[in-house]
């Protein structure tokens, strides 16, 4: 996982609420046994005018010109501005893999679905929850100003707009620490292996039926 310190980038607005993970990456692409290569199929059904299948060369497919990520002004976007309940539905981690592979580093929305939220942080994506009013204002600014960029400072927990306005955001300190250091949390958890073993022994005494070898 790459370290996340400060990211500055072009913003793309996706103006619909309840964007589900089926929409982010449709099921046929979940047959892959790899973690990479999902970017070309991000939002496949919105992005292309035909039905996609795994292993296809997407560069030759007909694109939907109305879809925001196909518009030249948003090419190269790394900050996705979204509406409420982004990432709802299926637990597929292929959704953050596809977003990350496409080039997104930050997603800003009024709310996120729980499982998606966890999955995204484990893949180096920073999810920022801002109130509905602020997100609404950002949508208006992005749409009104071509080339609109945001500067996201994880250390200082601020989103900085082109006018210099600082919008503070919350992030759990453990998630922040893992992002800043590009850390794999399995290694961190295994530092507590002794505590886990102690717990496990006690648990086995209390509920032996949970252990098949007991």
């Amino acid at each position, binding site marked *: 996982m790459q370290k996340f310190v400060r990211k500055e980038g072009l913003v793309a607005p996706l*103006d*619909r*609420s*309840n964007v*589900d993970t*089926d*929409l982010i990456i*449709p*099921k*046929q692409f*979940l*047959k*892959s*046994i*790899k*973690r990479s290569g999902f970017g070309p199929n991000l939002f496949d*059904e919105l992005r292309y005018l035909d*039905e996609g299948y*795994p*292993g296809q060369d997407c560069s030759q497919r007909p694109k939907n010109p109305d879809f925001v990520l196909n518009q030249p002004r948003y090419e190269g976007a790394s900050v996705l501005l979204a509406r*409420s*309940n982004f990432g*709802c*539905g*299926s*637990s*597929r*981690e292929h959704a*953050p893999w596809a977003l990350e592979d496409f080039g997104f580093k930050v997603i800003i929305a009024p*709310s996120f*679905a*729980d*499982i998606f939220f*966890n*999955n995204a942080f*484990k*893949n180096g994506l920073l999810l920022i929850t801002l109130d509905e009013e602020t997100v609404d204002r950002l949508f208006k600014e992005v749409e009104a100003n071509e080339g609109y960029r945001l500067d996201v400072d994880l250390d200082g927990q601020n989103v900085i707009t082109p006018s210099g306005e600082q919008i503070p955001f919350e992030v*759990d*300190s*453990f*998630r922040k620490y893992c992002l800043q250091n590009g850390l*794999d*949390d*399995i290694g961190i*958890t*295994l530092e*507590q*292996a002794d*505590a*886990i073993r102690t*717990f*496990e022994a006690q*648990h086995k005494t209390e*509920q*032996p*039926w*949970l*252990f*098949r*070898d007991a």
Partner: protein
Amino acid sequence: MAAQTLYDKLWQAHLVSTRDDGTSLLYIDRQLLHEVTSPQAFEGLRLAGRTPWRLDANLATADHNVPTTSLERSEGVDGIKDNVSRIQVMTLDDNCQSFGIELYSINDLRQGIVHVVGPEQGATLPGMTVVCGDSHTSTHGAFAALSHGIGTSEVEHVMATQCLLQRKMKNMQVRVEGELGRGVTAKDIVLAVIGKIGTAGGTGYAIEFAGSAIRDLSMEGRMTICNMSIEAGARVGLVAADETTFDYIRNRPFAPRAEQWDAAVAYWRNLVSDEGAHFDKIVELDAAEIEPQVTWGTSPEMVAGVHDSVPDPAQESDATKRRGIERALEYMGLEANQAITDIKLDCVFIGSCTNSRIEDLREAAKVAQGRRVASSVKLAMVVPGSGLVKKQAEKEGLDRIFKEAGFEWREPGCSMCLAMNADKLGAGEHCASTSNRNFEGRQGYGGRTHLVSPAMAAAAAIAGHFVDVRDFDQAPRAAVSA
């Protein structure tokens, strides 16, 4: 000690440690695995040179990709025609074999949808923590087990450490009191709940379903309800343990035996919310007021009673919501104010981790018995949740009822719930489905899903459009052929 909710108790009983910011290590008793979300986790373990912490906590089965026609199933894994699907199922087999994890492979009688198989084997027990790389893991909460749907990185984390990193959620109680009307089922309860609180209404909460209507449900019904708590945004759904729970578990392969059984039941009796326990939010529904439900849109919250009409976006004052309704109507090919009963069906799917258990099949068969699927319906299929459900249904003659009515009787798997195998809708086709998600493209590119109960799906298959199953079962029917 202060009064605790069931969620509080389960959380406390599995808490290994908590950091200052509330991030906690929760010990996991059971991990269920399937072919779609596990390969990258196994690969991660291998690359890091790690081994599973506790093999006996894991149980695997192939479900999402498996074909459901007996012809394609007859040759086992090698017979899966889709190369990418076959490789994924083979990878699960190989991973389980090399790591030493118990697996019910494609043609094992015990194979099936992971959320049907776990409870059926008694591998889901009250008081457990259960995880699976699938959002419908909330199903297992029906057993008063703390269950989380997780992503692939978390699957790997649990395999390596036997723990999940998690922050404690808030408590919500959904109380459904009273008696359900005739023909109204657990599926209608949960769709009505989602319609009421919205698809994000449960985000950040563990929802405990309580009240007399929930206590009166079978385990199958409770599983249907907990299964769809994620469609209300809640990763965790729960029902308190009681005699119904214990009766279901007794004598199942993984259930405690002999003197351990009594000790276990004594422990399980405490798996209820204490009198006076604090819930951050309480939602109440009157069971008697719940009608058979049908979804009309592209989110499970877009739901109505069977006698209602499709909404008119012009009546919605919130701009984002109005655009959502407009987009949904366009995708679904429906008109504002159209009666739900005017929606014609091309396809009917009875199956999925929500509604493919024996009781679901019995309810559907009751409606289908002695009747015929409408000629306008191109495909009506019944996909049992597991090999054991299929066997039981065949023993009861349900397969014959379905086949005589014109339904296809298939092999177990996730099938058309998410269309990862060959079972999918064509663009523009309307499907009455007992599954859990009506998202765009979910059941096939351009497919239009309407979520309903098994009885409502069977009635829709016979009528060719949605009908109120309560009117339906008074209609005359042809004599059952011998």
